[in-house]
């Protein structure tokens, strides 16, 4: 473990109101007026006002970080409210940055907000990051995470990283340019992302809402420690939290033996395998729209709808008459045993990616009539039966 000097100089001064507001910080000898002035002088960019961004933003705002940048292009959805505690029923449908900004203004009007409603892109990431002292990454996909990592390396900025899935979360601090040559970046931990079909996501696998607070609060704590230079930062350590065991494990991180230096940004969609799903063009995959499937059912045409999602997803919502056969290594053989290779089959999952992988495997096995439901059950709910719940 190591100490780092404070990231931010205490240039700003505190008003009488601020002294009163932050008095519980000012009473801590390690923070004091000097530390609180550093917080007020700090510029922190939070990427994603979602699960991790919500608690991190609330606590950084309450702690008195002077300038908070927020970047997110998404809008608040009802299914966010189980964990994204900065948003409210009254802000469903609004841009997340606007919703978060409203909550922060209510909480602490002394915070200066900088709102970015664009998607983070390689073209602007380094220039954007250069305007901040510290980046906090609360995004939900590998493409953005590698972009954030590489852009932080190029901008020379430290970043606080966290990720969550179901009951488990991880957090760390990455900073290639850290003083004393101890720097590392996310690629030292994981040099490459998993292919999309193996990349877990909370929108398909779920997440305990409170886990966002467990990991988001670690992230906010690390940000405050870096800004004020107190304590031992998580740089060089990975914190692994398990809510069910209620354990925190620490794993030492080191520079990867075969690391390559990062000299420019690249195409992160390609890097994460997103532009070429499973090496096949989308146009090569036989598909059917939700509206076409409805018409086919109404005509009474012979077909079977196979739902390859997990049991929990099926229990939330499913298409009447569909067969539930969850994706597994033996699924293709099970489908063949049950329906043969010539029954007209329509496969679907939540949004179309997982069923596409199954479809390709069936095609390789010589199935003659398999189609993928475009946009999955989400498209069915949106375009055919709006009485069904979405998730």
């Amino acid at each position: 473990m190591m100490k780092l000097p404070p990231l931010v100089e205490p240039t700003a001064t505190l008003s009488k109101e601020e002294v009163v507001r932050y008095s519980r910080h000012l009473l801590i000898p390690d923070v004091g007026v000097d530390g609180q002035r550093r917080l007020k002088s700090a510029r922190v960019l939070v990427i994603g006002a979602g699960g991790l961004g919500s608690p991190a933003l609330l606590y950084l705002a309450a702690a008195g970080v002077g300038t908070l940048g927020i970047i997110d292009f998404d809008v608040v959805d009802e299914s966010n409210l189980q964990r994204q505690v900065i948003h409210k029923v009254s802000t469903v449908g609004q841009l997340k940055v606007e919703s978060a900004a409203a909550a922060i203004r209510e909480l602490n009007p002394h915070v200066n907000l900088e709102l970015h409603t664009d998607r983070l892109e390689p073209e602007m990431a380094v220039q954007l990051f250069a305007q901040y002292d510290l980046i906090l990454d609360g995004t939900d996909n590998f493409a953005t995470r590698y972009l954030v990592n590489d852009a932080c390396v190029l901008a020379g900025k430290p970043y606080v990283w966290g990720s969550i899935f179901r009951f488990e979360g991880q957090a760390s601090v990455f900073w290639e340019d850290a003083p004393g040559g101890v720097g590392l970046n996310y690629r030292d931990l994981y040099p490459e992302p998993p292919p999309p079909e193996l990349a877990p996501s909370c929108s398909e696998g779920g997440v305990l809402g409170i886990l966002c607070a467990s990991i988001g609060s670690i992230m906010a704590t690390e940000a405050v420690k870096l800004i004020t230079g107190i304590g031992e930062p998580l740089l060089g350590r990975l914190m692994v939290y398990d809510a069910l065991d209620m354990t925190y494990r620490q794993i030492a991180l080191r520079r990867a033996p075969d690391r390559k230096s990062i000299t420019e940004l690249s195409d992160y969609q390609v890097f994460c395998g997103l532009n070429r799903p499973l090496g096949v063009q989308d146009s090569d995959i036989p598909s059917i729209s939700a509206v076409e499937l409805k018409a086919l059912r109404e005509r009474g045409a012979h077909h079977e709808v196979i739902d390859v999602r997990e049991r929990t997803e099926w229990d939330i919502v499913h298409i009447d008459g569909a067969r539930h056969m969850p994706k597994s290594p033996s699924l293709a053989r099970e489908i063949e045993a049950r329906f043969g290779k010539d029954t007209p089959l329509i496969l679907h999952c939540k949004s179309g990616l997982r069923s596409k992988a199954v479809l390709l495997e069936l095609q390789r096995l010589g199935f003659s009539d398999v189609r993928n439901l475009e946009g999955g059950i989400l498209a069915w709910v949106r375009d055919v039966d709006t009485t069904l719940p979405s998730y």
Partner: protein
Amino acid sequence: MPVSVSVSIPTLLRPLTQDQKRIEIEGATVRELIERMDSQYPGIKERLLDGGEMHRFVNVYVNDNDIRFADNLGTALKDGDNVSILPAVAGG
């Protein structure tokens, strides 16, 4: 004497281990361990290995030490070691 270690299975791979979070298994090296796991829980090997090497989005730790800084798959195991598998997760 056979070397028996405890392996902690990440959430993502638990569908392959009948939802077990920890399994006891024998193996003198990490490679042997993975082979034995795969014979007991088919499918787990291809989630960990790409050809003969570890996937670059999965790390294996023996008593919290990353095998990339030891002998990779050849890392020797001792009786009672704790092995953990940690795949990259991006959720947020």
